[in-house]
C-alpha cells in the first residue's frame, strides 16, 4: 500500500462577486511510497498548499480522488495517523507552549500521563523546553515553527504532511529540521513536504514532484529526473608532468583549464575517470577533488518554470 495515492485530483475555487471559477490544481496524479521522504517542489502559487489542504481535508476536491494511508479523503479516523504542519503556523496566542501542546494532545486522545511525557520529549527534541511556559505571543517565528513541528508529531504519526517546514528558520534551525526529517524516515515514517528551497529537497528526498501552475511537470527519483543527460565529471589536479597531461588529452571532454598551479580536467564518464586516475597515480600527480557535474535541481527548475511563467 502507498502512503498517498492521488488520481486526477482537481480543485477549483470560486472567487469574486460572480463566483468565477479559478482552477488551482489540475488533474494531479501523484504517488508517495511508504517510508520515503517526498519533496513537493514548485514556485509560490503553484498549488502546493492546496494539495496539502486537500490531503488533510481542509478543502474538498472539485473532481478526482485520493487515498491517504489507504483511506479516502476526509476520513476523520485516518487523521489519528497523520501529522500536519501548515505554512507559517498560527496558534492561540493566549496559551503557553505547554498548554497548546496539551490541547492538541487532548484532541488526538492522548491520556494525561502519556501526554505530559510526550510533550517533554518533543520539547527536548525540538529544543523549546526552556520556552514551554511562555505565552505564545512572546515566541519568535522560528520558535513557532518548532512548536508547529511538535504539534504535528504529538500523536507519533505514520505520515507527516509538512507545508514549507524550513521557512522562518535560521541555518542552524534548517539543519535541525533536516536531521529531524531524516530521523523520522529512519523510524519508518513517511514524510511529504512542500518547499521552494531547492537544496533542502535535493539533500533529503528520495523522490520529488515538481508542480508548476497547478500541473505536475515531473515526478520520480531525483537522479532520474536530473540524470537523463550525460553527466560529466570534473577533476582538479596538480603536479602533473606536462608529457603526462598531453598523453591524457584523448580522455578529456574539453581542453584542460588551469587555475594557478592546478589543472581542471573534465571527463565524460566513470570509465574515463578510472583510466585517468590510474595514469595520474603512476605519474605521482596530486588529485584535489572529483566532482560529478550533474544538472542541479535549480537549473532544472528554472528551465521548467520560466517558460510557463512568462508567456
Amino acid at each position: 500500500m502507498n502512503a498517498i495515492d492521488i488520481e486526477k485530483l482537481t480543485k477549483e475555487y470560486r472567487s469574486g462577486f460572480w463566483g468565477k471559477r479559478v482552477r488551482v490544481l489540475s488533474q494531479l496524479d501523484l504517488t508517495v511510497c511508504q517510508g520515503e521522504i517526498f519533496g513537493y517542489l514548485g514556485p509560490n502559487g503553484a498549488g502546493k498548499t492546496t494539495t496539502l489542504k486537500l490531503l488533510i481535508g481542509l478543502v474538498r476536491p472539485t473532481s478526482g480522488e485520493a487515498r491517504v494511508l489507504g483511506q479516502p479523503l476526509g476520513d476523520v479516523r485516518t487523521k489519528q495517523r497523520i501529522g500536519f504542519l501548515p505554512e507559517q503556523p498560527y496558534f492561540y496566542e493566549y496559551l503557553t507552549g505547554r498548554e497548546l501542546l496539551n490541547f492538541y494532545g487532548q484532541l488526538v486522545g492522548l491520556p494525561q500521563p502519556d501526554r505530559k511525557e510526550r510533550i517533554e520529549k518533543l520539547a527536548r527534541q525540538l529544543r523549546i523546553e526552556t520556552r514551554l511556559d511562555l505565552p505564545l505571543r512572546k515566541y519568535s517565528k522560528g520558535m513557532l515553527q518548532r512548536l508547529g513541528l511538535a504539534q504535528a508529531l504529538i500523536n507519533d504519526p505514520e505520515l507527516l504532511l509538512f507545508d514549507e517546514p524550513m521557512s522562518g528558520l535560521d541555518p542552524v534551525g534548517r539543519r535541525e529540521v533536516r536531521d529531524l526529517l531524516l530521523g523520522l524516515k529512519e523510524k519508518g515514517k513517511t514524510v511529504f513536504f512542500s518547499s521552494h528551497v531547492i537544496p533542502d529537497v535535493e539533500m533529503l528526498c528520495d523522490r520529488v514532484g515538481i508542480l508548476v501552475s497547478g500541473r505536475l511537470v515531473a515526478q520520480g527519483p531525483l537522479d532520474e529526473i536530473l540524470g537523463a543527460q550525460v553527466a560529466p565529471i570534473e577533476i582538479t589536479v596538480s603536479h602533473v608532468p606536462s608529457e603526462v597531461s598531453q598523453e591524457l588529452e584523448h580522455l578529456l571532454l574539453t581542453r584542460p583549464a588551469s587555475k594557478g598551479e592546478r589543472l581542471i580536467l573534465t571527463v565524460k564518464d566513470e570509465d574515463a575517470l578510472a583510466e585517468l586516475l590510474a595514469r595520474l597515480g603512476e605519474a605521482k600527480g596530486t588529485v584535489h577533488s572529483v566532482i560529478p557535474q550533474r544538472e542541479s535541481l535549480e537549473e532544472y527548475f528554472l528551465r521548467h518554470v520560466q517558460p510557463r511563467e512568462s508567456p
Partner: protein
Amino acid sequence: MRIAAIALNTFMEAVRDRILYAILVFALVMLAGSTVLVTVSVGGEEKIIKDMGLACISIFGSLIAIFLGIGLVSKEIEKRTVYTVLSKPIHRYQFALGKYLGLVLTLLVNVSVMALGLIGLSYFWEGFASPRLLLAVLFIFLELMLVTALALLFSTFSSPTLSAIFTLCLFVAGHLSADLRLFAARFGGGLVGTAAEGLYFLLPNLSRLDFKEQAVYGAAVDPGALALSFLYAVFYISALVLTAMAIFQRRDFR
C-alpha cells in the same frame, strides 16, 4: 473529551481576554450604581434595584454573546488556527459545537457573577431574594444562549463585521417580533399580512423569554407559558446550532 477540550480552550480565551473583565467590572459598577438611584427616590427601592439589575445582566450578557460570538469560528479561520485543530482526528461539527459550548460556559460564569451581585443587593434592601428573580435570570441566560447561537451561525459563513450586523438586526427584530404580528393582523391576510405572519414565526421571539416584569412587580407566573417558553428556547437554539454545524461541516478553508 474532544468537544470538552475545544470548549475549555474557548473559555480560556475569554478568561484571558481583558475586554471581558472590562465588561464585567462595568456591569457590577452599574449594578452598584443603582443604589444611588434608590437614595433619591421615594419608595419602591427594591423594584428599582431589580429592574436595573436584570437590565444590566441582559444588556452586558448580550454584549458578550454578540461580540465574542461573531468571532467564535470566523476568527479561527481568519487567523488560521483552525488548520491545525482540524488536522487532528476531530469532526468539524464537534469543533463548532465545542466553540459554542465554550462561549456558553463563559456566559454562565459571567451571568452567575452578575446574578450573585443582584441577589446580594436585593437581599440587602428587601431582607430576602425572590425566586422569581432567579427565574428571570434563567430566561435571560436562555436568551443569551439563543443570541450566541445566532452569532455562531452567521460566523460560520460570513465575516465578523457582517455577522455582527446580522446578529444585531435579528436581536432587535427578535424583541419587536410581537409587533410584527400586530402588523400582520392589521393587514388581515393578503400578501403583506401573510409575509409578516411568516416572518413572525421565523424570527426568534425574544420577548417570549422576558420574565423581568414578573420578577420586579411580583406578578403571577403561568407555569404553562413558562414551560412553553422554555421548550421554545431549547428548540430554537438546537435548530440554530445544528444549522451552524451543518454549514461548517461543508465549507472550504482556503
